[in-house]
């Protein structure tokens, strides 16, 4: 199992160059049944990452480009009155939207109106969609990879704080390192390479791996560390509010997934530290608007491992 996960990571690494850590975190997020928010400027390989993930895991993929006039129905799907050619009966038939896909790339999610955003986020949370009175389950695995431009760009609706909480992790891709970018420029087009990429994991294997995450042991000693971290965010003067209990559970789950990826049967403090910035960073809200929130790294350094 671990071998497969590492092969998956290696395969991803051939497409997205020089971003091992982000790839690993993205896979962790997927294993933990969380959703991923990538916050970065356009053109750093967000879409490529999403495509590569769906490809290596053998999952169906849909991409939704969020615009200001995108409506919830454009994502969830719509019932259309139509006649069945064979029987001649007319009825409303549901046309599933792009959300009914195992990997959904919600590109530039902050360009859509809040109404549309919330439709997406509710589907993410519930893992089912209720349209016109009928509840339709979403596929499993179900993984939303949303991208968002930094809020200082024009014409965006930044995700409200409460909605940020729906994402297990937030990542920033960043520009590739020089060597990686060089390779990017020299070698073949990534999209072409993607076509040739072979799945390393079946959806069933992925579900199995996801089930294993919950079995990774978190001892009371480790829970003490998690608590110490959570309490540190709550007491920190630079933060408006600390991590919520839900955030604590998310942090634990992310650490479990990371430990699984590392091939461990128990979570160690390093696992928590590895996912802390990604899993907690977007949930920390600065006490004052003008000042930046303390970084996750600063909090990690301030908390002793019990």
């Amino acid at each position, binding site marked *: 199992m671990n071998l497969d996960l590492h092969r998956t990571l290696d395969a991803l690494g051939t497409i997205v160059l020089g971003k091992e850590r982000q790839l690993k975190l993205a896979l962790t997020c997927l294993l933990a049944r969380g959703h991923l928010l990538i916050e970065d400027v356009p053109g750093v390989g967000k879409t490529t990452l999403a495509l590569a993930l769906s490809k290596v895991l053998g999952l169906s993929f849909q991409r939704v480009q969020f615009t200001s006039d995108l409506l919830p129905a454009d994502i969830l799907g719509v019932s259309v009155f139509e006649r069945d050619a064979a029987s001649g009966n007319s009825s409303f038939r549901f046309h599933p939207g792009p959300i009914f896909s195992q990997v959904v790339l919600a590109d530039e999610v902050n360009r859509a109106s809040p109404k549309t955003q919330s439709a997406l986020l509710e589907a993410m949370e519930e893992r089912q969609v209720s349209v016109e009175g009928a509840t339709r389950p979403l596929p499993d695995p179900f993984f939303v990879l949303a991208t968002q431009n930094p809020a200082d760009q024009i014409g965006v609706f930044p995700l409200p704080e409460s909605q940020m909480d729906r994402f297990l992790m937030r990542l920033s891709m960043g520009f590739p390192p020089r060597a990686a970018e060089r390779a990017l420029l020299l070698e073949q087009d990534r999209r072409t390479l993607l076509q040739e990429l072979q799945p390393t994991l079946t959806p069933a294997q992925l579900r199995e791996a996801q089930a294993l995450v919950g079995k990774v042991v978190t001892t009371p*000693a*480790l829970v003490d560390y998690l608590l110490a971290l959570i309490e540190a965010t709550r007491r920190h003067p630079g933060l408006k509010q600390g991590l919520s209990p839900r955030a604590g559970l998310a942090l634990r789950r992310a650490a479990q997934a990371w430990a699984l990826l590392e091939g461990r049967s*128990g979570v160690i403090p390093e696992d928590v530290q590895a996912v802390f910035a990604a899993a907690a960073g977007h949930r920390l809200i600065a006490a004052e608007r003008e000042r930046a929130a303390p970084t996750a790294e600063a909090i990690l350094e301030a908390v002793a*491992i019990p």
Partner: protein
Amino acid sequence: MSSPIKAAVSSYLHVATLLRLLAVLVFVLAPHMARLPVWETVAVLAVIAWRAWAAQRHFTMPSKWIRGALALAAFAAVYISYGRINGQHAGVALLVVMAALKLTEMDQRRDVMVMVFLMYFVCSTHFLFSQELWTLVYLLLAAVAVTTVLIESNHAGEPLPLKVTLGRGGRLVAQALPLMLLMFILFPRVPGPLWGLPSDAGASRSGLSDRMAPGDIAALILSDELAFRVDFDGDAPPQNQLYWRGPVFWDFDGREWSEGGPVYTAPYPVQLQGAPVRYEVTLEPNRTTWLFALDAIDQSQLPPDSLVTVDGRLLANKSIRERIAYRAVSHPRYLAAPELSDQHRRMATRLPGNRNPQAVALAQRWRAEGMNDAALMQTALQMFRDQQFFYTLNPPILEGGNPVDEFLFTTKKGFCEHYSSAFTTLMRAAGIPARVVTGYQGGARNVIGGYYTVRQSDAHAWSEVWLRDKGWVRVDPTGAVAPNRVELNLQSALGADEALPFAFRRSSSQLFTQLEARWDWVNAEWNRWVLAYGPELQKEFLGRFGIEGWRDLMLALIVALSAATGLFGLIALRRAMPVRIEDDALRLWRQATARLAGDGLIQRPHEGPQVFVARVIEQRPELAATLQPLLASYLAMRYVGDTSAIAKLQQQSRGFKPRKV
């Protein structure tokens, strides 16, 4: 009674609890019962029985007039019995009867509390009468019992099972024990016995007397009471040299010997010879000033507050009312009074005129035959040996005015006092200075403690004769008749048909001897360390720890009490905190990694163990082989919860000894 079993009769005290309280009260009062007048024992038991009955029958308590009358009657009865209402006996009697009467007014929870604390107080009064080991054990049990009542009476609802309250009570008392011990050791002591009271001194005690009439010592022999214990440095002298010197009698009225010797304060003229014997005597209170020592005592190494009389006795400056221990040095070989003053000679040859004429005549006949002093002495001893003299505890009663004559020529059955008295009379009649010495002879070696116990049954009387160039020589005429008395012990000297009371048959069974020796040893240690723990011993004991003076003592007491309470608090705190197996792992991990600290490799507070190990190995690659398995075990135990890794981790932690660079 329509419903005989009805729980919760009153709001403050359950019937079952009350019955337990009454049982505990009986338990607490029981040792006092034997010391109280009969009317009081009966009255107390009657009140307790009535209270038990009343509780089951739901009687209303008597009115305050009746209670007042009862209290007054109790006062009066105690006063009539003792002539006072305070002091050791009367005070306790009053306390006990009032404690019982308190049962008639248990109307509220407050009264129950008063009862409980009364019982605690009654417990402590037992120490006024007895400080033996068994008393302590009994009172500890009583304290547990009273505490169970305290717990029970503070518990609302149905009574707790007896097992639960006993368990809690026992635990509370056990927790108080260390504090008790601390207070015992550190609390400043005042001179005098811990619990002794002046009135205590009047109680009669058997022991040697300052006079000796025929039959006195024989009566003493029947007492198994301990006289003193002796612990020799090194080997003890042989049994036949163990003569513990007591009262020396110079004066004889024909029947009774009494001291009447020369003035005490003159120095004891003795020349010590041979090797010294060093020993420590733990003397039971004898209410005299007599200390006992072997002949002849070294006057340059006397115990404190003591003196030696002119006839070689060791005396204390004041009456011995509490158990004391003293060290002494004696020389079994000595020359006492090489020169005898005329006054002493006169005193040592004085006989009452016209008493015991036959004995006097016999001695004068021997003298007329031209015997010298030594030969005469031998002749007298030979007479005891050759003629039909018997050693017996039950000699015929000598009622006449000439008991020596009667004994020597008629009955010929006697005990040590008869022999020494007769022998001394004979010597004096022949003009040889002689005197009677009483004391103890021998002692039983305790097989457990290695010390000797000397009992009242070891009391003995012998003679001393003054010979030219030899001084005062000890002559034991009893030894001539019954050598076993001196060589072995009393029982062996007596005939088979004359058995001692059971308690004296010391060799009757191996097991019995063993048990008795053990019990005596326990008592000896108890006396030595607990009852004898007065100001002197406290000073000496604490001095070893550098605690001197009362300031140090108070400081030590406060520090010790705070430390004890603090420790107790910590233990309680630790109990309240969850105990986790992974914490053991952390301890072992820290022990191991602390050995890297010398090289500046210290795990930072926020640094995970794996990252730390990676950092260490980067600097000290040679440690990888030992550090990696240690890390693996640590992580397995602390973060996977694999408890089976503990043994491995312990081994790895101990075995991790990085070389300093």
